[in-house]
């Protein structure tokens, strides 16, 4: 889908005169209005109903006790969410740190370097990565990516960089790193698609001017393309981050499901979305309210990230929507 809102403010349209006295017209308008209002209503009910359902855990553990608690012992009624929050942040950061530079470079290649003949197929293939359901990434991750790629890499990291603490063994295969790397693959199509749209809004004249002054292609990108696109890239990164924070199934299968905090990224941990998916079906009422509490925290974190992303981008007059589909 092409992005039509290149020039902000160009959308001054006053199409047809309404005839409010015609009944059909009035009904039609009302139906459309209600449908639009339903979106706001749904979002509001979502927040209220899940928050209310999670109240028991906030009461029993206390606000701070739940958020910063380190222990998660359901049969004793102890629910501390911190290990999950930590794991979610660490895996999402790995996903973004690995995925974003790759995405930006891909977008630069497609929009500034490749000939149209190559750019089309390449962007089509990258987009295909977004079409693959996350459960398929998870299945592939468990049986192919982790044993044959992540495990050997983690072993080598533990052997040579283990002394730093960040890559300290023992290596099991399932880890923060396994999850983070699969997340990075999953965010590449979204982030690179948004960056591509952002780069497309840089005026051709500025690029041509840079080239005319003798800039190399890289210097043209550095001087004309990147400064113009900074806000858009930040927005893309944050949308990618939001996606990575909320990803459930890949994390549920690849994180290792260990309640605890490891500085080392090659060791197993847990994420918020993963613990919800893994423990929901075996949980009793108290534990379900604790899982709902984690869900509410996750919701607010992702909402904040998403809203910030859109504000950053909206300020530049851009839109994230078409690339996000």
């Amino acid at each position: 889908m092409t992005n039509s809102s290149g020039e902000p403010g160009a959308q001054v349209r006053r199409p047809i005169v309404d005839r409010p006295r015609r009944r059909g017209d009035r009904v039609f308008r009302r139906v459309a209005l209600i449908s639009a209002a339903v979106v706001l209503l749904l979002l509001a009910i979502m927040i209220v109903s899940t928050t209310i359902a999670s109240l028991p855990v906030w009461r029993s553990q206390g606000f701070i006790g739940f958020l910063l608690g380190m222990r998660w012992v359901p049969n004793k009624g102890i629910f501390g969410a911190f290990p999950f929050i930590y794991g979610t942040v660490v895996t999402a950061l790995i996903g973004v740190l690995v995925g974003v530079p790759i995405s930006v470079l891909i977008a630069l290649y497609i929009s500034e370097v490749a000939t149209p003949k190559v750019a089309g197929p390449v962007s089509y293939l990258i987009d295909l990565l977004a079409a693959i359901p996350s459960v398929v990434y998870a299945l592939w991750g468990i049986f192919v990516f982790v044993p044959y790629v992540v495990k050997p890499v983690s072993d080598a990291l533990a052997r040579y960089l283990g002394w730093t603490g960040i890559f300290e063994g023992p290596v099991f295969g399932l880890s923060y790193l396994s999850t983070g790397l699969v997340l990075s693959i999953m965010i590449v199509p979204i982030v690179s698609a948004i960056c591509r749209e952002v780069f497309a809004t840089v005026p051709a004249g500025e690029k041509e001017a840079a080239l005319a002054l003798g800039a190399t292609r890289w210097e043209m990108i550095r001087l004309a393309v990147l400064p113009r696109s900074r806000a858009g890239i930040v927005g893309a990164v944050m949308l990618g981050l939001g996606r990575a924070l909320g990803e459930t199934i890949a994390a549920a299968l690849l994180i290792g499901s260990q309640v605890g905090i490891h500085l080392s990224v090659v060791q197993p941990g847990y994420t918020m979305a993963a613990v919800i998916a893994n423990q929901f079906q075996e949980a009793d009422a108290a534990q379900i309210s604790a899982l709902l509490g984690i869900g509410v925290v996750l919701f607010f974190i992702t909402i904040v990230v998403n809203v910030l992303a859109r504000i950053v981008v909206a300020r530049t007059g851009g839109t994230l929507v078409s690339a996000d589909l």
Partner: protein
Amino acid sequence: MTTEPTSLGRPLSARRRLTDRLALTAMYAAVGVSLIPLALIAYFLIVRGLGAMSWDFLTSSQPFSYVQRGGGALNALVGTSYMVGLASVLAVPLGIAAAIYLNEYGSGRFAAVVRFFADVMTGVPSVFVGLFIYTLLIVPTPLGFSAIAGGLALALIMLPIIIRSTEEILRLVPPSLRDASAALGATRAHTTMKVVLPAARRGITTGVMLAVARAAGETAPLIMTALGSVQLAFGWTIPISALPLFIYDGARNPFAAGQERAFAAAAELVAIVLVFTVAARWIASRHDRELGR
């Protein structure tokens, strides 16, 4: 594109040429690095997925034990059809109507707020949508884990996608069409239904199909709504399986037979999703040509 850019005829300094080369190499490497997973996944799905696929797999349901070999994912395919079908029936008209409001009527603050929150809704983690339907329907009503609950969760995932993609498409419909219709005396409702929507037909279809593809692949919200079932079930108020749930179960359990079925189901699911995705793009490209772009 192969000539070296130079500054006023002077040869490019070695350092600048090197930086340029390095940047280009990094771009090629990035494309390569991200196409490797795609190739690996395609290989995995073809070798292990199609390897485990058979006529029996397509036409029969899961055996009652994960250890037992044979059987298939028909129960999951039926469940996916039920829930994606219900989700489409709910989300498509609602989403299109909301988009009509945003583009044909809304110009004020309210429309901007709805648009913003529809965007925000696309970023809500799908597992949270599942939790929401659980607290709204499964706890307080006698409905329980069911195809209806799963379908509602999927509808909530499809809704914002349909709203925003439809609105983008409606925006592309030339205002002159609306003006022409109005000049002939048509009301706004008539204009929208008979002129604007038909003109945007292909684009809207594309958005709907992408939303369907997304919903068909969702796992997390179904865990706490549809629950899953190993039986071939036809019904709206009973727990029901879905292809993603089927794959998730197979991947989670340590039994080879269940894992094999998960590989085959993954191939089946990706095939379904790709049919929708590729068809959506094909329709979109024809739409672009129709509008002369």
